[in-house]
């Protein structure tokens, strides 16, 4: 009797719970999902944004062919260099922003891969790669796409943002089109507000970059950002980031960093083995390229340069003024300033740009313990603390870094690039100039844009600057030769 009661009790409970769970599932999942589909329809606000963007697209006009010609002419300029390393051909093919690399990414996407576009230097590529997604940096240096975003942004907006936004609006860049999501850091004002427009094109993840990064609470907040980015990535790719996958991603990136460091060290050689233009392009190619292949190719480039030391091949003679570039970003294919400086007989030995030596591969991720939290903390610290972006305050380490590079690379003069509308870089100029004045290093501040209108005027100023350096050198040489 007893046993029968128990059995009937169990059966009834089972049936009741299955029925209950079933109903619950029906309401929660099926009904909510159908409701959710309704919600996903564009809201009125999004409609307004999309209308605005399509209007801008219409005003942008025919930029399609000019993108190609702009990149081609920039590549032509590079190919015209004397004694260019033969291994640079590989970078040319990636830097054309179309062709094989695009079809590679397309195949990757067809296989279920996800692409995460990012801006600035705060995106942890190790974390993105550990989740199985592909990171692409999308900051643009194209001049022809700027027209389309002119009416959306204020006239004195920074050209990087104008160009990037225009590129997105016009759908000019294949890389932009392939992105599943954009990682937008709140770095400077322009970049922060750029996300508000990009939202109409591609889903956007905003990342809060703390400006007073020396505060411990801010560093904690940034680590929390890294944690939340990790879970967002896991949701996007449906791959869990595990200890081993993250470790592998960090180690692969570290291999690339070691090679980057080797290339960087080779640029210290006197006479110069590679022109600054080429080295900068090789660096920026990492934004789009497969990192492992880049590492292999760059190792080959380093070997070629090391052979040049023995065979005494150089791109310029030892007496050519050694110039360092600092300031606002210089982005491929806008090689206006590097072309002017190197065209006038100087050589760019190093730079402090966020699109060059400071971005991506410069500082290493230093893991003290290979635990999940340890790796995340190391990544978070790497993408906040050693960076010298001028949005941070205080930013004394930037001056230290410039001084260090000036000494290491035996720099004769610094060209400080200031883009119109790039206020943070302009603000830091006076302090950096003062610090370099103490070292006796001449500084040339250049305020310019993506346009080519001021080419003649800039050339005159740069030539005068280089002449001044040359004559100062000659005076120093004659002084040292005088019997004391």
């Amino acid at each position, binding site marked *: 009797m007893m046993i029968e009661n128990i059995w009937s009790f169990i059966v009834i409970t089972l049936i009741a719970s299955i029925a209950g769970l079933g109903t619950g599932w029906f309401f929660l999942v099926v009904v909510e999902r159908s409701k959710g589909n309704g919600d996903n329809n564009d809201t009125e606000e999004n409609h307004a944004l999309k209308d605005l963007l399509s209007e801008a697209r219409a005003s942008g006009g025919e930029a399609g062919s000019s993108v190609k010609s702009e990149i081609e002419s920039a590549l032509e300029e590079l190919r015209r260099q004397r004694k260019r390393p033969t291994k640079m051909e590989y970078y040319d093919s990636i830097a054309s922003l179309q062709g094989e690399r695009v079809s590679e990414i397309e195949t990757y996407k067809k296989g279920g891969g996800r692409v995460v576009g990012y801006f600035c230097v705060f995106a942890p590529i190790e974390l993105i790669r550990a989740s199985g997604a592909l990171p692409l940096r999308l900051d643009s240096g194209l001049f022809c796409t700027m027209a389309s975003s002119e009416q959306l942004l204020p006239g004195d907006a920074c050209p990087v943002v104008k160009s990037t936004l225009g590129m997105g609006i016009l759908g000019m860049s294949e890389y932009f089109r392939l992105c599943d999501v954009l990682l937008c850091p709140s770095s400077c004002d322009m970049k922060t507000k750029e996300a508000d427009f990009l939202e109409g094109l591609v889903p956007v993840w905003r990342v809060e970059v703390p400006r007073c990064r*020396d505060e*411990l609470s801010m*560093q904690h907040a940034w680590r929390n950002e890294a944690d939340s980015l990790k879970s967002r990535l896991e949701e996007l790719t449906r791959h869990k980031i595990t*200890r081993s996958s993250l470790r592998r991603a960090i*180690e692969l990136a*570290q*291999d690339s*960093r*070691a090679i980057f*460091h*080797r290339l960087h060290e080779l640029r210290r050689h006197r006479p110069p083995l590679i022109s600054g233009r080429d080295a900068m392009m090789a660096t920026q190619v990492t934004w789009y390229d497969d990192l492992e292949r880049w590492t292999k190719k760059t190792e080959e480039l380093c070997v070629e340069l090391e052979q040049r030391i023995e065979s005494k091949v150089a791109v310029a003679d030892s007496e050519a003024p050694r110039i360092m570039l600092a300031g606002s970003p210089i982005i491929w294919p806008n090689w206006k300033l590097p072309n002017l400086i190197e065209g006038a007989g100087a050589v760019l030995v190093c730079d402090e740009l966020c699109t060059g030596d400071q971005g991506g591969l410069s*500082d*290493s991720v*230093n*893991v*003290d*313990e*290979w*635990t*999940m*939290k*340890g790796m995340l*903390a*190391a990544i978070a*610290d*790497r993408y906040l*603390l*050693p960076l010298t972006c001028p949005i941070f305050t205080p930013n004394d*380490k930037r001056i*230290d*870094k410039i*001084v*260090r590079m000036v000494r290491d690379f035996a720099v004769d003069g610094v060209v400080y690039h200031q883009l119109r509308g790039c206020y943070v870089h302009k603000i830091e100029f006076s302090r950096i100039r003062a610090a370099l004045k103490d070292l006796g290093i001449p500084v040339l501040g250049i305020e310019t844009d993506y346009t080519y209108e001021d080419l003649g005027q800039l050339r005159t100023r740069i030539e005068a600057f280089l002449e001044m350096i040359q004559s100062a050198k000659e005076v120093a040489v004659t002084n040292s030769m005088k019997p004391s």
Partner: protein
Amino acid sequence: MVKLSSARTTSQTLSFIVINLGFLGLQTGIPLAILSCNFLKYRLFDCFFYVLQDGLATGLQGGTVYIYTLAIFMVLFVMMALLLGTAWCAWVCPVGFVQDLLSKGRAVAGVRYFKIPDRFQRHIKLIKYVFLAAVIVISLGSALPWVSNTRLRNSLYLPLCYVCPARALFVYLQIFLGILPATTDVPLLSIIALPIFLIGAIVVRRGWCIICPNLALLSFFHKLNAVSLFRRKVRCTRCGTCTRVCAMGAADLETQGDVSKPECIRCFDCIDHCPADKSRSCYLFKKKIAESKFPTAEIRRQLSDQA
């Protein structure tokens, strides 16, 4: 330049075997400037704190011989402190070695350590001086004539040894290895302190070292010894790696030049991990023995073998 962490592990392992496992079957009776238990059999070196407490308590009761012995060993201690300073803790001390081993095990298991918040660090660093003062005052007090109660005197005599977790740890280790008889007496407080010590080693890495009275003694010589740690600010990228690596909370991004702090135990893990070329360096007798380097592929391999 060699990576210092592997050299340090070798040095620690050797001293652990020689001092705590009775490896050579010898006993010199000379104390080193480290915490190595005095209740062990065949220990090559004695514990300085045993000698100190014993000398103070017994000496004050009229054992003049003890005072002389203590004076000799004090001079020896000062000489050792002037030679290596706090480097004894990271390179020789077996208690530190056990903590490092436990910490490595935790890292392999994939658990992150707990970092003591900076606002507490300042106060926690003072605990070791209070501990040192308490040890000295109590062992002196036990010798006062009015402490006539023998039981009270016996429990006040050797105050550190009554609570020292290393005593329980190493005595039980020797019992386990069959060196000491199983009947060896270990005080209850020492047994209670052992699990706290183990948890401290696992959770905050060098938990014991933060409050260790021996480090308090050695730290008086932190600027006066042959081992020093330097940081060049202009080379530093301020990436914060050293602050994560340092188990003693002694690394910061502000001070420059000679950054040998009182709580720095000269493990030089910060030099091994520092990615900035020539930013951090250590000197022995004004001779540079190591400096930081950018982590090239080779250096990284050495480091991950360690981890």
